[in-house]
């Protein structure tokens, strides 16, 4: 089987600005890829091209052997996506919203109810199931977004800053959830929190100004720091990788 996610030569140009300048990425099932980089590095833009929201200026994406550009609906069916900020319809209750997502994904009747129930169970949403989403706290909203993304148990899961803005307990819950799903999915999550990589990821990819500057295990990332540094070693490596490059470009 081909890799679950295969992105080749992805580029995105906004006007005269190159946001993403040639990214190659293959992710297999069982991998949890932490996508790191400073603000504006091009993480969201890359994920939006992988999920088919943005058309790449150049390059291609295959999701589970299906080409995103030529067969977008089939490719999207293999994929769950949590966009940045976890947008949901505020006027709907959690039950209505997840039911709607299930229906659009083609589930009916008892099958849909079963899927919604399983997603609610995994994301701990029972307590707010019949509450309108606009009345929920940030942590709950994020979990609704996650529930929506995993409803169809997709082989590919893409999450843009899933823990951003959550308190430590909520972060912990989301990471636990990711860990329980890691075994048979290809997961990509973006973050600018380095501890997240050590906590849940099997692989770290750092991008800066639209290009990959590191791709390896969290251990390999750690090993790049000089032995003399005892604390915040990843921070040190991150800074070296993402600022040295900036300087050299200027």
């Amino acid at each position, binding site marked *: 089987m081909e890799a679950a996610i295969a992105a080749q030569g992805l580029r995105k140009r906004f006007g005269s600005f190159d946001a993403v300048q040639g990214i190659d990425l293959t992710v297999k099932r069982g991998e949890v890829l932490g996508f790191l980089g400073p603000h504006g590095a091009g993480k969201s833009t890359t994920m*939006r091209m992988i*999920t*088919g*929201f*943005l058309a790449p200026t150049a390059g291609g994406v295959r999701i589970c052997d299906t080409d995103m550009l030529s067969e977008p*609906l*089939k490719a*999207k*069916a293999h*994929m769950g*996506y949590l*966009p*940045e*900020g976890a*947008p*949901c*319809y*505020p*006027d*709907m209750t959690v039950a*209505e919203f997840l039911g*709607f*997502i299930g*229906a*659009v*994904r*083609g589930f009916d009747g008892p099958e849909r109810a079963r899927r919604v129930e399983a997603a609610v169970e995994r994301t701990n949403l029972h307590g707010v199931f019949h509450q*309108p989403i606009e009345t929920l706290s940030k942590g709950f909203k994020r979990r609704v977004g996650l529930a*929506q993304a995993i409803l169809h148990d997709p082989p590919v899961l893409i999450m843009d800053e899933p823990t951003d803005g959550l308190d430590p307990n909520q972060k912990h819950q989301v990471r636990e959830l990711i860990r329980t799903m890691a075994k048979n999915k290809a997961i990509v999550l973006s973050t600018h929190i380095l501890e997240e990589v050590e906590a849940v990821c099997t692989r770290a990819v750092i991008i800066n100004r639209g290009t990959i500057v590191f791709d390896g295990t969290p251990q390999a990332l750690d090993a790049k720091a000089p032995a003399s540094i005892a604390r915040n070693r990843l921070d040190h490596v991150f800074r070296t990788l993402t600022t040295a490059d900036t300087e050299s470009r200027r």
Partner: protein
Amino acid sequence: MSRLAPIVRREFSAYFNTPLAAVFLVMFLFLTGIFTFNVGQLYERGQADLRPFFDFNPWLFLFLAPAISMRLWAEERRIGTIELVTTLPISIRDLVVGKWLAAWAFACVALVLTLPIWLTVEYLGEPDRGAILGGYVGSALMAGAFLAIGSALSAVTKNQVVAFVLCAVVCFLLLMAGYPVVLDFLGGWASPGVAEAVASVSLLTHFEPMERGVIDLRDVLFFAAVVAAFLWLNILLIEWKKAD
């Protein structure tokens, strides 16, 4: 497989989840009553027909239709759910058509709620039912055309107020194009061909025969073509501008 049904259901129920659409609906019905009975003198005319109602109907839809359609895409863009729905396994065509169908269904609910006015003239006399039915068909088609225009225009902005104004202005121009004042004005200096062309794109020109009970297939096709053209534009606008 088409996945229109969940889109239509969600969008239609969204009109009842927020008070705004209901407020506009009530205003529409209230103004319909005032214009039909007070301004249009339905009783005083001494004729059992709905002419005053249908004469004012397009002008009332001129504010109801933008109020219904402004939300469709502008809100989706503002709260970012456009990124969610366009990465679900559903085509943009199905999203656009589903949203428009929901909006049209809501407009048809508004029309159905005016049926007591018909009952009133039935009670008062022997109205020409063909003309009334034709008028209702025409109103529904007119509303459908306005809503397609409004849906397409709500795709260009994140701001519902902007979407409302754009839709109202475009629909206003398309209505006015059929008015004798405009046509006389054009007739004064433009060639007759121009005046005729302007009249033929006016929604009103194609609405008036129906109001008299004449449902000409060409008029129906005209409205269908307006809907199809604007929904097609809507699809293009979403494809081009969804990420802006």
